[in-house]
């Protein structure tokens, strides 16, 4: 089980790789679309990368509810087995 810190840094790595977001910017309160310029298609790829890294699948309907980096972190935390 990954800790909150591990999830945050893992997610930051994914954001950098998929969408070119600087790791320092990937803080929990940031909105993907508004603050980080991550659009709906990049979100799909982030979901895929999250599944590879943490084994947590994020279906399209759940993806729509994930607005901030913090939302993603808590979703992963809740759903990791």
């Amino acid at each position, binding site marked *: 089980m990954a800790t909150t810190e591990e999830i945050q840094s893992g997610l930051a790595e994914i954001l950098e*790789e*998929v969408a070119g977001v600087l790791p320092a910017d990937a803080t929990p309160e940031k909105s993907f679309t508004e603050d980080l310029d991550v*659009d*709906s*298609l990049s979100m*799909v*790829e982030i*979901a*895929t990368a999250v599944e590879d890294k943490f084994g947590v699948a994020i279906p*399209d309907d759940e993806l729509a509810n994930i607005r901030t980096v913090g939302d993603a972190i808590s979703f992963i935390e809740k759903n990791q087995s």
Partner: protein
Amino acid sequence: MSRGLSLRKGAAGARILGFGDYRPRRIVTNDEISQRVDTTDEWIRTRVGISERRFAGDDESVVDMSVAAAGKALATSGVLAQDIDTVIVATCSAPAPIPGLAPEVAHRLAISAPGAFDLNAACAGFCYGLSAAADAIRSGSARYALVIGAEKLTDWTDQDDRGTCIIFGDGAGAAVVAASDTPGVGPVVWGSDGEKSRAISVAGRSSFMTMDGRAVYRWATTQLADSAHRACELAGVDIGEIDVFVPHQANLRIVDSMLRTMKFKDDVAVARDIVYSGNTSSASIPLALTAMIERGEAKTGDTALLLGFGAGLTYAGQVIICP
């Protein structure tokens, strides 16, 4: 035991001798589309990577475009029409299901009595057709085949649906495939996922195409890398040695995502013809490759990985040696 039949002796392998393309005359820009539906040049460029596409006119039918592209492929390959014995037209936008288009295409090219049929594997159609042609050559059913990918998708696209009208365009591409002692068409890796058959579909004869873009995007960016690697492996080529990557031109973001997940060398030449052609389904791979050859980005003897995927859902990939 019942009696066995004798078989023909085929060639050791098949090889592509030349490519040809046909791009409809009318160029449609994003600004022109923005005048009709609620979208912008900026949105289309960032989400799908298209700057412009071609729309075929009344005198540019699927058959007309097929004949033009195939004629050019014959000319570049130096093969005579009379030597062609097999014609395959990959298309999913024929104006009607009967008759198939391939016999008429062959007739207009003055190819006499070839085996001729249409094949519908949507955007994977060219790769399916190439595989069918190469296998026919290896089994001795064919010696010189024409494989054409041709689409008039605008006939089936609702120009008021901003989810699809921004993406699809028209065009045709073709290849001449011939028997060869040195194989230049590698084994195909193909497959399908019929559970997602509704993801891209036309409900009936008076309907337009509908598409669940998000589902297709997710599938294309996650499910295809393994098949691409496998196609390289079967051809005996490390993916890191591939010179040219020609994925179906569905969305530039899908191309970029594939580049992140597949381990190509840094200076691999990558098809980005979607910028000027939009998504032309089965035509996109031969259209893109013809342009790359003409610009010198794909050179004689280069290894190219082709990867088609689309409605069905279907996919197919193989490595070829560029003519």
